[in-house]
């Protein structure tokens, strides 16, 4: 083990020790201290040991069971299998989309744009990044977008960095638009009872406004780069050669793949109506529709079914989520989150707007450093406890969603999309963006968009 690793372990133990001291200050009992320490260990582990996070999650769960902090039945209940299964279903469908040439199709719709100029290009990549992040998860979406931007910037001989950053910012913003965009979207929907329709009516329009603000900001910020791209676009005139750059494999496959995906989205968007019609429990269909269509795809392509499950489903991340949810649930089970809820409520002087503001800004700043799923998983039981204190929960759920996603824009490690995109950029073009270079534009976009959301949540009756 090298010295850095030992140093990190020392930091981890120190942080857990700190949590213990705080716990004693809050006069928590021993079970509560164990639950909180184990949960904090997983949170710190995501920060310090990204590669060890599943290992640490395994150990934490085992400890919770051995110390009788939680029983098996509740552990399984808190693991939120419904959220995991939803994500598995969506990942299988995205796998189908990938193999049917979706990436090539994406590149062609950008480069076949009539009279393409740099401003249109910036607008197009922002909108596509955001909408794509609404429909498929943000990580798949950003890989597609980064690859497309690299191929196109290569053709026009310009530095891709500004466009990659623009795409990442838009992806994080876009991922709030529907329940599909970000794992925290479906997590919040499943725990709050908010439907796809709620997201479309309340989150999507706000997302679009924030996106337009972002497009304006990045156009100003990257004024010089956009101008250079414009010059090169004219120099390499028309898109004759560019149009041929990349093509779609069998067109029919693409149509079927896209068709299946769009039908899935269509049914997901109708889930609430159908649940009312068939008198089903809230969100039953939201969670089962991806499974139905993934099931159909796996019957249709039965020879590849195993590959979809083994290769296209990111089990590493999902397993981490599953265990994380179980650990966050234990916080609720041991009544730790209730204590936190009371503290936060007294901090907000029991004022609903104050509470919304605290949740929004804490999650925004928190998720600029922490993985937003970790943060949201911790906050969900706290928010559920506010119900017992007599608060209306809806604005708090939206604060959690927007804070968790928009905060990711602030730093370059703020969200998985940032890390994935910058990883590809560094590997492919040997360009390494410094923390502060990102922070400048990240902070502007992150704070201003969060501010817009704050205004909406405070003033607009729609969110109350």
């Amino acid at each position, binding site marked *: 083990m090298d010295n850095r690793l030992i140093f990190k372990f020392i930091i981890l133990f120190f942080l857990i020790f700190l949590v213990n001291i705080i716990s004693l200050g809050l006069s928590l009992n021993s079970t509560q201290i164990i639950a909180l320490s184990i949960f904090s260990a997983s949170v710190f582990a995501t920060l310090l040991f990204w590669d060890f996070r599943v290992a640490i999650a395994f150990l934490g769960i085992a400890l919770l069971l051995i110390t009788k902090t939680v029983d098996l039945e509740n552990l399984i209940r808190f693991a939120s299998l419904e959220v995991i299964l939803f994500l598995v279903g969506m990942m299988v469908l995205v796998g189908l989309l990938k193999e049917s040439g979706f*990436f090539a199709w994406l590149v062609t719709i950008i480069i076949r744009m009539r009279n393409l100029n740099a401003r249109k290009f910036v607008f197009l990549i922002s909108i596509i990044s955001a909408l794509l992040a609404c429909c498929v998860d943000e990580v798949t979406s950003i890989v597609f977008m980064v690859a497309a931007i690299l191929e196109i910037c290569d053709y026009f*001989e310009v530095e891709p960095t500004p466009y990659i950053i623009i795409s990442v910012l838009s992806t994080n913003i876009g991922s709030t638009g529907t329940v599909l965009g970000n794992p925290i979207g479906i997590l919040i929907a499943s725990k709050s009872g908010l439907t796809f329709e709620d997201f479309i009516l309340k989150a999507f329009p706000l997302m679009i406004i924030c996106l337009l603000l972002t497009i304006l900001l990045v156009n100003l910020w990257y004024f010089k780069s956009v101008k250079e791209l414009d010059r090169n676009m004219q120099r390499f005139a028309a898109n004759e050669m560019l149009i041929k750059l990349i093509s779609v*494999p069998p067109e029919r496959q693409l149509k079927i793949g896209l068709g299946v995906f769009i039908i899935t989205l269509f049914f997901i968007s109708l889930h609430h109506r159908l649940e009312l019609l068939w008198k089903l429990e809230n969100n039953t269909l939201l969670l089962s529709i991806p499974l139905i269509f993934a099931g159909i795809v796996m019957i249709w392509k039965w020879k590849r079914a195993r590959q979809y499950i083994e290769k296209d489903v990111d089990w590493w991340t999902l397993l981490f989520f599953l265990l994380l949810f179980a650990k966050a649930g234990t916080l609720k089970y041991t009544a730790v989150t209730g204590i936190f809820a009371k503290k936060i409520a007294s901090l907000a002087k029991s004022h609903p707007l104050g509470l919304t503001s605290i949740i929004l800004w804490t999650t925004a700043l928190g998720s600029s450093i922490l993985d937003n799923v970790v943060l949201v998983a911790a906050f969900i039981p706290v928010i559920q406890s506010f119900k017992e204190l007599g608060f209306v929960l809806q604005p708090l759920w939206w604060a959690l969603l927007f804070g968790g996603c928009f905060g990711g824009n602030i730093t370059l490690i703020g969200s998985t999309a940032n890390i994935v995109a910058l990883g590809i950029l560094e590997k492919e073009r040997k360009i390494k963006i410094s923390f502060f270079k990102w922070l400048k534009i990240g902070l502007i976009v992150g704070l201003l968009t969060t501010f817009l959301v704050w205004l909406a949540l405070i003033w607009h009756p729609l969110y109350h």
Partner: protein
Amino acid sequence: MKVKEIMKKEVVSLSKDTKIKDAFGKLLQIHISGLPVLDENLRIVGMFTEKDILRAILPGYLEKVGRFIYEENPKIIQKKLLDIQDLTVEKLMRKDVITVDEDTTLCEVARIMLTQNVRRIPVLDKEKRVIGIVAREDIIKAYAKEARWITD
């Protein structure tokens, strides 16, 4: 039969300071797809193959974005070729090299080749120095002789 009975004892190798351009020249010259990279004490430090060159010039996201077709040659390939030509072999070679010792059985070498998806395996002596190299062809030749498909 042991691997030392069939391995090639004259090992052509590269040093880690060889330039990519020159290393590729050497591969072409002796009609081989990859060579071991040795230090001054004949200890193995890596394996350099044509595949490493391909990996360096094509985008790493190919597998992640699913199927598509390049209809034109992207400009970046030319640029990447220029970028890597004067790099040393050390930068592109695979560093976790699968090796066997001289007393390994033929079938074990064959098993490793099939399961680890390698074509050529360096053979080490007790002091971990490279004393030979065995290729897929050598294994099959030895078996073919045993089965009298071919004669010497």
